[in-house]
């Protein structure tokens, strides 16, 4: 039974890595961009007053950069997960190979969804780790590892998977939704930043932010890694229950949206039609 699930997932991971290898030049170009972005953003984030008065100090400060990484790496993971899922699925729809994938006797959630999720997971973990490796030599990243951080990290992954499945379900139905995809990514990036103590946001912003997939996960990562708070303590960002609710809610919504998108595409006969 286990091999019945592991073989197709391994198959998708192998294919995902094969495609990543063929896109290696693009990834190698993108990877330093993430590093440069965070290094440049460090002196600017939360320094609006200094920017206005023209007194920005272009120094890489350890604490700020470390906190930013705790926000940025989950976002890179989220971004790559959603983007890879979307573009790979769109490419398969455009070429028509998606229909051959649907001829598998294995359940579609396993080969089309779960397999690709794991494939994207491994690739994005590599890119997120690469970003860290690029930033670390330039600034002393000071993060005290706490095993409890695995819980919000896992919940962030589940939320990212959920959103990528929502996007995937919508892609099966509407195909060209790049703009929606980009809009969602931008919103998640902006609102999740409210979870770290580097910027001041209006109350409504923080409130709305709780409904976005990364915000409470990032907030809880920050608290676990930079303060002494336990993972089970009720966090200021909404608490453990809220974090679980949002993350698992996105996952459940993703599974439902993917199933719905698949049914609609099969009914319309547009599974492999671009």
């Amino acid at each position, binding site marked *: 039974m286990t091999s019945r699930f592991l073989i197709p997932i391994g*198959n998708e991971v192998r294919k995902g890595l*094969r495609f990543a290898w063929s896109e290696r030049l693009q990834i190698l170009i993108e990877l330093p961009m993430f590093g440069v972005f965070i290094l440049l953003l460090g002196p600017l984030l939360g320094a609006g007053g200094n920017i206005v008065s023209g007194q920005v100090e272009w120094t890489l400060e350890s604490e700020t950069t470390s906190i930013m990484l705790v926000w940025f790496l989950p976002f890179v993971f989220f971004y790559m997960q959603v983007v890879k899922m979307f573009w790979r699925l769109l490419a398969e729809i455009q070429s028509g*190979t998606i*229909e*051959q994938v649907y*001829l*598998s006797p294995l359940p579609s959630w396993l080969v089309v969804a779960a397999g690709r999720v794991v494939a994207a997971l491994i690739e994005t973990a590599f890119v997120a780790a690469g970003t860290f490796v690029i930033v670390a030599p330039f600034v002393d990243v000071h993060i005290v590892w706490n095993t409890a951080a695995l819980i919000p990290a896992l919940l962030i992954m589940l939320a990212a998977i959920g959103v990528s499945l929502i996007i995937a379900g919508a892609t099966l139905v509407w195909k060209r939704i790049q703009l929606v995809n980009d809009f969602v990514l931008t919103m998640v990036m902006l609102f999740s930043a409210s979870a770290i103590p580097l910027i001041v946001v209006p109350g409504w912003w923080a409130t709305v932010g709780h409904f976005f997939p990364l915000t409470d996960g990032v907030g809880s990562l920050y608290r676990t890694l930079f303060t002494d708070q336990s993972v089970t303590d009720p966090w200021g960002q909404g608490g453990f229950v809220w974090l679980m609710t949002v993350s698992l809610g996105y996952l459940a919504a993703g599974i439902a949206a993917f199933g719905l998108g698949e049914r609609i595409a099969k009914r319309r*006969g547009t*599974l492999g039609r671009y």
Partner: protein
Amino acid sequence: MTDAIEYSGLSKTYGRGKDALTAVRPTTLSVPWGQVIGLLGPNGAGKTTIIKMTAGLITATAGGVRIGGHDIRRDRAEAVRLIGAVLEGSRNVYWPMSAWENLMYFGRLKGLRGAEIRPRAQWLLAELGLWERRHQLVGGFSRGMQQKVAVAAALITDPQILLLDEPTLGLDVEAARTFKDWIARLARDEGKTIVLTTHQLQVAQELSDRIAVIREGEIIADLPTAELLARHAENRFEVRLDAPLDGLRASIPDGATVSEDGIETRIVLPDADTRALYGFLDRLSDTGAPLTAVAKAQPSLEEIFIRLVHDELDEERTS
């Protein structure tokens, strides 16, 4: 024993209300194991929709499909295990992967282990003349070679049923012939059940045990190929001249049909009236026209198809 494929009241309507488009009208039809059935019809007749409903890629509006007795919706896993498909207009295989990687991928996708896939992949690639290039990316192959990889991928699990939707589309003459020979071998030597759609009616005639003609979503003829040809058989003579007709028009008997391509002229005398033929040949002899062939001829499947689709709908409805 159940048939390989059974359609019971299968129909498909896209959209709703005034925009609704009926692609397939209620169809009941069975394909026995080992039979090659050609689905013929003009563009938009509903052939691809039937193929995709057979594979479970499109949900039927009403009715159902059973593959080897398994309902394609309720028992999808068992049903698709019996199917291999080369779909029209699709790449079918991954271009950024090699032929070998594609076969390994699709084999695993269908639940096989590597050790089970390798010998079959090796055999298929050798049979199709791709063994030497197995590690090259499919994207760099010619259209014919890509189509061969698609067939190999469809056959990697040795399925009993093959769905081939326009498999020779875009292939050059030689590649199409190689492909056709291979399909014929699969049917003859391995007893595969094959559902074939093609616009190349000569290919359909050579490969199919049975022909179903579809027009506007409705099957208007469904007969064994030989019987379909026999039903439309005519005793007629065909005379070929290696020259344009020009000054010979007056010599042509009443009721004859003439087709010219600028080089050759083909004259078909409507019934096997040997007296009329001799008279016509005498007149040709007088003019010195370069005669290249005189033969007793039957209408081709192409002619029958055109008649069925355009002229004889009411007479040829499937009983």
